[in-house]
């Protein structure tokens, strides 16, 4: 009879029953399976993929990756150990015909204390670097200095404002392509125009959510010159999948030159088609000016959509989802809802909703020429 909480002498039990009768081939098989599994695990990490977190190039992403590997190996150890014991148990103790009832073991205090303490120790080992990394990543090494960039997320694009430390009228507003100098601390202030978003550059820094009425901050640093992909990581509506951006890490000199030229007014078009395009842009049929700013234009001062002063220079359009080619720009202007479903230009601008305002192919050609000229 078994009495609740009684401890039948299980220690004896475990020592007498554990002589493994595993055949050599079984043991080999399990070993091979585990190796294949771990091998798959490791080869499946592709640092070359554009958003792979295994190719960390900044201190924030790198510390997150280091922490990941610490936990991964702890987890892999536990995985192999526990799954190994499980597989061993089900092979070793399968019923054989004529088996009597096994000994009715109810517990083993020492064993139970052991498997309470061991995981606790592993977890403490994981918790310590976790807490250190949390604080390191939360606190910018240079919170007031460095480059300050305001990120304003909107359905479904990003506005970047480079704050001029001396004169706020000289702030630079741009969109969807974040240029930063290499090896510098960049302090980023996050805000949202509408719903929740999340700012994420997998190779440079883990994500921080963008929440209206809740300003968030993060710091990043790029340590490798190049182009890195970012993507919104919090569900934000119909075209959430298409809310992407690029981070261009460049040398300090290149960055300074970029910043200076971005601050300049737009180039005035000189060829007739582009001039016609500008007229359409600032005209009352298309009314592009109502939502977009082009610096230097008297009319185009809109604040709703991205600043287009130097849109011709950007490598991509529509928040990083299409290369900035003539054809893609044409497709975008012709039918924005197909390129990015639900975007407010397509759903709210009169030009796309009132048949009388619809642009002709020729008008679109002119607009494309004008926008491409905005270098």
């Amino acid at each position, binding site marked *: *009879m*078994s009495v*609740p*909480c009684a401890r039948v002498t299980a220690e004896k039990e*475990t020592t007498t029953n554990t002589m493994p009768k595993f055949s050599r081939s079984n043991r080999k098989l399990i070993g091979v399976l585990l190796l294949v599994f771990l091998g798959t695990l490791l080869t*499946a*990490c592709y640092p070359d*993929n*554009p*958003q*792979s*977190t*295994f190719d960390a190039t900044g201190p924030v992403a790198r510390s*997150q*990756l280091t*922490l*990941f590997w610490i936990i*991964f190996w702890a987890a892999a150890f*536990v*995985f192999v150990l*526990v799954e190994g014991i*499980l597989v061993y*148990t089900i092979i070793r103790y399968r*019923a*054989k015909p004529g088996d009597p*009832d*096994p*000994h*009715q*073991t*109810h517990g*083993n205090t020492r*064993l*139970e204390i052991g498997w*309470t303490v061991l*995981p606790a120790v592993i977890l403490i080992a*994981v918790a310590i670097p*976790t807490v250190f990394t*949390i*604080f390191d990543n*939360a606190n910018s090494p240079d919170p007031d200095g460095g480059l300050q960039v305001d990120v304003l997320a909107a359905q479904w694009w990003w506005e970047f404002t480079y704050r001029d430390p001396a004169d706020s009228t000289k702030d630079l507003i741009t969109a969807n392509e974040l240029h930063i100098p290499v090896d510098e601390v960049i302090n980023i202030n996050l805000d949202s125009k509408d*719903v*929740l978003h999340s700012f994420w550059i*997998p190779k440079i*820094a*883990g*994500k921080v959510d963008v*929440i209206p*009425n*809740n300003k*968030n901050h993060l710091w990043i640093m790029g340590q490798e010159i190049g182009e890195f*992909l970012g*993507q919104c*990581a*919090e*569900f934000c*509506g*119909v075209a959430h*999948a298409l809310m992407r951006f690029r981070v261009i890490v460049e040398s300090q000199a290149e960055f300074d030159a970029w910043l200076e030229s971005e601050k300049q007014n737009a180039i005035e078009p000189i060829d007739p088609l582009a001039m016609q395009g500008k007229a359409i842009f600032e005209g009352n049929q298309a009314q592009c000016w109502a939502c977009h700013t082009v610096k230097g234009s008297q009319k185009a001062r809109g604040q709703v959509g991205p600043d287009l002063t130097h849109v011709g220079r950007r490598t991509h359009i529509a928040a990083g989802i299409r290369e900035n080619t003539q054809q893609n720009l044409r497709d975008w202007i012709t039918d924005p809802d197909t390129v990015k*479903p639900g975007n407010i230009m397509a759903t709210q601008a009169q030009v796309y909703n009132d048949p009388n305002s619809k642009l002709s192919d020729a008008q679109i050609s002119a607009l494309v020429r004008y926008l491409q000229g905005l270098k």
Partner: protein
Amino acid sequence: MTTLSIPLPKRPTHPTGVWDWVTTIDHKKIGILYGVTAFIMFVTGGIEALVMRAQLASPEAALVSPEVFNQLFTMHATTMIFLGVMPMGAAFFNYIIPLQIGARDVAFPRLNAFSFWTFLAGALILKLSWFMGGAPNAGWFGYAPITGLAYNPGHGIDFWVLSLQVLGIASLAAAFNFVVTIINMRAPGMTLMRMPLFTWMTLITAFLIILAFPVITVALIELLFDRFYETNFFVTTAGANPLLWQHLFWIFGHPEVYILILPAMGIVSEILPTFAKKPLFGYPVIVLSGIIIGFLGWMVWSHHMFTVGLGPVANSVFAITTMAIAVPTGIKIFSWIATMWGGSLIFKTPMLFSIGFIALFIVGGLSGVMHSSAASDAQQQDTYFVVAHLHYVLFGGAIFAIFGGIYYWFPKMFGRFLNERMGQINFWLMFIGMNLTFFPMHFLGLDGMPRRIYTYAEGMGWDFWNIISTVGSFTLALGILVFIVNFIKSVRSGEIAGADPWDGRTLEWSIPSPPPVYNFAQIPIVHDRDAWWAQKREGIPAVPVAGSSEDEHDIHLPQASYWPLVTSIGLFIGAYGLLFTIDIAGISRVPVVAVIGGAITMVGIVAWALEPVNEPDESPEHY
């Protein structure tokens, strides 16, 4: 007291047929109703998942529109959590708990029927939204402010809110019922520490439901007021802080995870000892671990919010509390393995699913520990890595245990076995399919694929593992198809199972299969944790020989009733009715239909209150 003389319609007295099922208050029939309904819902949620997997099989696919895709993932998760896994757990609570504790029914049989019909009402409100202008599209978590009118003018979110409210009523009613049943209706001698583990986990789950659902109810009422009556709880343009929703949601949402998994752990803790022919190893510690998990479950909600900017102190605290949950969970896993250690293991289908549960839950648990490390989680949050994690826990965990439970208790419910050969095929298809579907998602997440995207560009390096995952999902579906065929065939013509087909250990195996309406001819007297095993092996009589002292024709059972159903129908009409308003006599937007629904509910409740538990004169269900 004077007798009230309100004329009530006669009690339903249909021993068989549709009316019997509609008015039944027999916990076993209600359990079957729950199980079948939940399984149908589970299949619809599965179809939603398959459409998503088909869309994601290749980059830039256009099988469904982005809007439909967003509805699909919202409906998939809401369905699986509230209409699939939770009520499948409820099916087992209903059918098994009274049998395990030696009772003839639950404490409040009519309330039990009400829980089921109200659950069905909530399920219909949610699923019918597909045909009523569009399903909800903001995720099962419904983060503000995208659920607000400004960003979501359609009715999808309204259906979602109303459905969850109605489902909450069903869950709360059921939870109170099971707390009272388990505490008060145990057979003599069944102390708390002699309760079967499944009963224990059900008790903890019921307490979690009672404490968690009021929180989501409050959040949903606020959202409902925002949408229907222009309040500003979550309207950011009026200054609201949308984090309020996230806190409320996850204070409910994390205990909800344990509401889903604890019954599964209970099921596995019943199956393993039976097929190992050994008692559960470390029973008191497993019970304690369940209780600790229940408590800790309230202290970890912010790990769903590691990236919202709560600051390093909060993130550190929640990282550590989350890691702490791994300790009691680990204890359970080790105890299950130790239960098998030294046993005589028989690999029938229920056992395969239980071992599968352990193997897969370990993976889900370990990836959970990875997430708990807040700093490194910043790379994993809202990526496919989380999708992999949660499916290892909820599919590899909860669903595998539920399938194990179905194979295990099916002979008790229907007196027949599910076909064992098909069962084995079913298990292996699901096991392989599950790993093919969800393991690659770990790689996808770490390679930077966010969740909830309806498409992805070429050249991201995500193509290969996505197609593998899609192949896996259809393998999984094939496994479930095999189960459906097996179920339909076996219900009619499966091999006859006796009262105790698995050489069980607990009281439900001491009575015939399927059990008579009254369950136990005589209430057993419990002397041991594994009461039935002790009687069989050691001759300690728990179950008095039938008919020895108590004549079974004297057993009084509660009788069928229309009123739980009427009350639920009123709730269904009332909830839907909030969407239909008209202007009457200068008062704008009067919800006339809702008022009618409310009136029906009130009539149901009053009639229910006036109806005696048993008609004293006529007693058709005397045995």
